[in-house]
């Protein structure tokens, strides 16, 4: 049995808007094990990004608990949350993912610098990871000199290089064409599985679910469906194609 890398218990996040209270995340609970790749899907406004922000220690919940690698986010101050994001979480975002004035290699190495782990060995590991993602020829390119797919792959390398417990991906394929989107998510899934990390991808594109181990479907802030069976997942993803 793999370790539980991420545990969410009775999570609630509510906002006040014009005097009314909106439940963006409504009593959500789930777990993600190390080596498991999970898709968080749902229509716009269903609470996916709010949930992801709470998991990323960027937003505090109204109530409930989030444990990353056994550490309770609610018990942490801001400094500890920054440290947790640096050490335990890997990120890829929808856009503006990379630091524009750093090359592909420097962007990945930045995570190592941030963790005080940049050395000869980690440099080699970084280059190998980029090569694995098909970017061996792009090490010295700036983000502006790379395609959207290449930039996303660099971001994936950056999200994984420091061996985080949890990797969070916020719509990583939103700006990619279908072929590149499939390539990116498939590579992402493979690396999550190989490295034994817990991965969560937020996506609008249900076709991407074919690469995940579990689908969490949200609607109106609630977790309305969990799909764990591989055939069901493929059917769910396939339905989106047709």
């Amino acid at each position, binding site marked *: 049995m793999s370790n539980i890398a991420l545990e969410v218990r009775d999570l609630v996040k509510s906002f006040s808007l014009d005097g009314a209270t909106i439940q963006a995340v409504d009593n959500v609970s789930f777990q993600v094990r190390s080596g498991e790749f999970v898709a968080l899907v749902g229509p716009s406004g269903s609470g996916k990004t709010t949930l992801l922000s709470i998991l990323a220690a960027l937003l505090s919940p109204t109530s409930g608990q989030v444990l990353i690698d056994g550490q309770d986010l609610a018990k942490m101050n801001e400094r500890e949350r920054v440290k947790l994001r640096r050490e335990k979480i890997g990120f890829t*975002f929808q856009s503006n993912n990379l630091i524009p004035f750093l090359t592909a290699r420097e962007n990945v190495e930045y995570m190592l610098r941030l963790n005080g782990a940049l050395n000869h060995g980690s440099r080699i590991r970084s280059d190998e990871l980029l090569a694995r993602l098909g970017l061996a020829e792009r090490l010295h390119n700036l983000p502006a000199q790379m395609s959207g797919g290449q930039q996303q792959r660099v971001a994936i390398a*950056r999200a994984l290089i420091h061996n985080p417990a949890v990797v969070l991906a916020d719509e990583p394929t939103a700006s990619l064409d279908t072929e590149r989107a499939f390539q990116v998510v498939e590579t992402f899934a493979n690396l999550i599985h190989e490295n034994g990390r817990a991965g969560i991808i937020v996506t609008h594109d249900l076709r991407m679910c074919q690469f995940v181990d579990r689908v969490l479907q949200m609607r109106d802030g609630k977790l309305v469906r969990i799909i764990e069976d591989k055939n069901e997942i493929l059917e769910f993803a396939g339905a989106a194609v047709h």
Partner: protein
Amino acid sequence: MMKNFTLATYLAIKEVVRNRGRFFLVALVIALITLLVLFIAALGEGLANGNRQYVANLDAQLVVFLEKSDYIISSSRLETNTARSIRRVEGVDDAGAVYTSSTEIVSLPEPLKVSLLGAEPGRPGMPPVVAGREFRSGEARETVIDQQVAFRSGIQIGDVIEIRSTQGVDDEFFELKVVGLVSGQSYFFQPTIFVPPSTWEKIRPQSDSELSSDTPFPNIVAVRLTDPSQADMMMTRLVERVPNIEVTDIETTINNIPGYSAQQGTVQAQGFFTLLIGILVIGGFFQIQILQKVPQIGVLKAIGSSNGMVGLSAVIQIIIVTALGVGIGGGLTYLFSLGFPPTIPLVFNGARSLIAVALLLSIGPVGGMVSIIYAVRIEPLKALRLG
């Protein structure tokens, strides 16, 4: 802390190097502001020197004026025996009468206006001779001239110069033999020539009514004290012991040179507003840059960079660009200064230039303060679509 500094420096340098065109342009704007500020500072120093140099370099701690002359040299005309009376006061080391006027050296291809000062050799008021010798006292037609005069006119020791002086309603010409040089003695925006008091009385421009008298009346008396730390007490003592005088220190004397305070105030205001413009320009640039970088800063924070590190990186970047701009500006100022004629009073070696450089180096961080605070306050949520 050290790791934060190293990372912040790394990010700042990388960004400046990779966007060197953009940052170089900003540095050039700072360089132009530097050029302007340094020239204003140099002009201020030069004008101040031109106005005050003689008084500032007096070998004295106190200056005696005629009572109620409001410490204005040209308004003060003392009795001839005032200097002698002052020398007798306990605590006075020496006192020398100083006589001021102006004239024009006409024995040059281009006439040169100069301040004509009468002073007693070896006494306060007469600056030390740096070349040649002091003039003889009495009515010797000898003069000691400021090096500035020699430099601008080519006059050398041993030369005879001719000056024009209006005596009543007629122009008269007097010849003076140059016997020595003094250094740094501009007064009232003009280089100076020194003559003995009796000679001064003969050759100074004067009205019809003044022509009948041969007695020179000093404008001021420069007083050197036995113990300079007792200046305040000595001011009171002198006023008590010598009739019809008022006494002050060198600084007050300088500030009361007609036009000096207004002129320096104007120059300082110009410098202040130029620095203010610099602060606004730099502040504007970095604020726009930070606004463009909001998502990027959000990503940096989301992946674990601390607020302190992000803020420090912005500060270091601003310091790098400002230092580069000030460096280029300093170099440009030096190059331009080589081409300026000596008649423009630019002095770059004053403390004023150093203060200007220090202020210029600080305008970057001051101007960028708002953008730095803004950068620190950017929420990492900006990296996500929630921001």
